[in-house]
């Protein structure tokens, strides 16, 4: 099989209340990726625009965005798997290049969530679940993940302190990530002090501090076939493995809650197989920590820990930068914020920078293989991507 590489990555700062429209927001991530790849719009053969609908009023945003970015008359389309849209976009770009339809494809993710209130955001997110049989009960994302957290606490003795430790780690790196929306330090005491906003219950056992923040942001990943990549780019980062999966939308259709998200397991196994690597080969990872419990489940679903033992990784700090498997050392969704359609691209950007040795203060020591785990909805969709330096 031919090889496909990433030749440029970019993202906007993730912020609350971006002062601009979606096309202007998309430009920010695109500009950084184009400057990173040192190419011009004529070099891009096609684009894929990724977001989740209904946060802003634009229908069919791909057309509006490509015109603004100067990517016409090249073909474009819109790809959506809610929170995992832009890693799905990467899979589509990879397929287009492997099919030899196009040589260079830009995957652009964006989300402007601040045009509507936080409660309206929750209502739209809730409708990313089963609108016929679940939404009438008043569901929202934190409630679903809270049910996984409760099941883990009952089955394995996972504690509220373990969950808080995931957020403390995220904040350790969020403070040094200039693109992150949440840059304040967080301590375990912030979760026990009744005066602290982070300790306030949202959907028990999850507290405010267990949840990532909505944000506005954009990301861009430029993908090229192997020959072009070598000609255009000094340090291409290679796509070694791609795995994807889907799951029952309704909680009633889910297997055992104490085994985490099945899409993470399925997508991970496929990606490892395609890349010909095992969990032990991963030097640095980005996992979808939309909630603290989601990171613990990802440790297990990706094979970094056995079922029920994910908590041990955070207790022993093995997922810190200096540990055996550094995870989310850019602050994760918990600190960066989670602009739905832009998130996957931001995770990919982090791993590409790590593999190139350009992650600055967040740099892990000499990583050769990195992994991105990006989940859509409450484990409704899952993508695992494995990247390598060689």
């Amino acid at each position, binding site marked *: 099989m031919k090889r496909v590489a990433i030749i440029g990555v970019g993202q906007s700062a993730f912020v609350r209340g971006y002062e601009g429209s979606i096309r202007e927001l998309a430009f920010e991530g695109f500009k950084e990726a184009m400057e990173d790849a040192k190419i011009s719009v004529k070099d891009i053969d096609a684009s894929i625009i990724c977001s989740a609908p209904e946060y802003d009023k634009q229908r069919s945003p791909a057309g509006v965005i490509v015109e603004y970015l100067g990517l016409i008359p090249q073909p474009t389309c819109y790809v959506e798997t809610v929170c995992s849209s832009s890693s799905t976009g990467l899979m589509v770009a990879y397929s287009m290049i492997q099919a030899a339809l196009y040589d260079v494809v830009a995957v652009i993710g964006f989300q402007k969530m601040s045009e509507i209130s936080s409660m309206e955001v*929750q209502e739209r997110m809730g409708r990313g679940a089963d609108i*016929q049989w679940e939404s*009438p*009960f*008043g569901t929202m994302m934190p409630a679903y993940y809270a*049910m*996984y957290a409760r099941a883990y606490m009952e089955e394995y003795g996972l504690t509220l302190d373990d969950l808080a430790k995931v957020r403390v780690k995220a904040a350790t790196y969020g403070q040094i990530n200039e693109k992150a929306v949440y840059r304040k330090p967080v301590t375990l005491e912030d979760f026990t002090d009744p005066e602290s906003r982070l300790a306030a219950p949202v959907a*028990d056992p999850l507290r405010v501090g267990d949840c990532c923040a909505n944000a506005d942001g954009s990301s861009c990943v430029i993908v090229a076939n192997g020959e072009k990549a070598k000609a255009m780019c000094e340090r291409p980062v290679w796509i070694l493995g791609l795995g994807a999966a889907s799951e029952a939308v309704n909680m*009633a259709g889910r297997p055992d809650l104490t085994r985490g998200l099945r899409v993470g397991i399925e997508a991970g196994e496929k990606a490892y197989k395609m890349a010909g690597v095992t969990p032990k080969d991963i030097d640095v990872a980005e996992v979808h920590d939309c909630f603290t419990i989601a990171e613990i489940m990802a440790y297990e679903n990706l094979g970094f820990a056995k079922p029920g033992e994910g908590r041990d990784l955070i207790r022993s700090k093995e997922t810190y930068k200096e540990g055996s498997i550094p995870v989310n050392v850019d602050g994760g969704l918990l600190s960066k914020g989670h602009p739905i359609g832009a998130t996957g691209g931001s995770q990919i950007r982090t791993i590409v920078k790590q593999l190139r040795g350009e992650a600055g203060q967040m740099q892990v020591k000499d990583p050769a293989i990195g992994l991105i785990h990006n989940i859509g909805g409450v484990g409704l969709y899952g993508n695992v991507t494995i990247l390598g330096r060689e």
Partner: protein
Amino acid sequence: MAKKEEQDTRFSKFGTVSFTSITKTNDFIDYLEEGKVMGTRCKNCGKTFFPPRVDCYNCLCSDIEWFEISGRGRLLSYTKLMFAPVGFEDDLPYMLGLADFGDFKVFGRVSKEIPEEEIKVAMEVVPRVVKLPEGRITYELTKA
């Protein structure tokens, strides 16, 4: 002039806010009115569905029958919400839960009538129909 056919929008009565009005499972609402929480079963292969559906992907047929959920379920997990989406604010705080009935699982509200300290993972629950104001109707999980 042709008489405008009336649409069957029974499902719009389901829950606090329904986002669906027209579905082939509209009879679910009539059964709720009779006090029954029902699932469906494929007459061809016997596969059971909850939430109910009228099409069986297993044998690609639409020959289904309704069955009443009987017996006790085991509560697998639950959560108490302190924030709610738009349209559900007046219900706060409320609990959501998932219960295992063997061949299928049931997701829904957990009854406010169960004292909170009694709500535990693995407790036995049964579904119960609840009539809401303004003709709306739903079900909840309550103590067996």
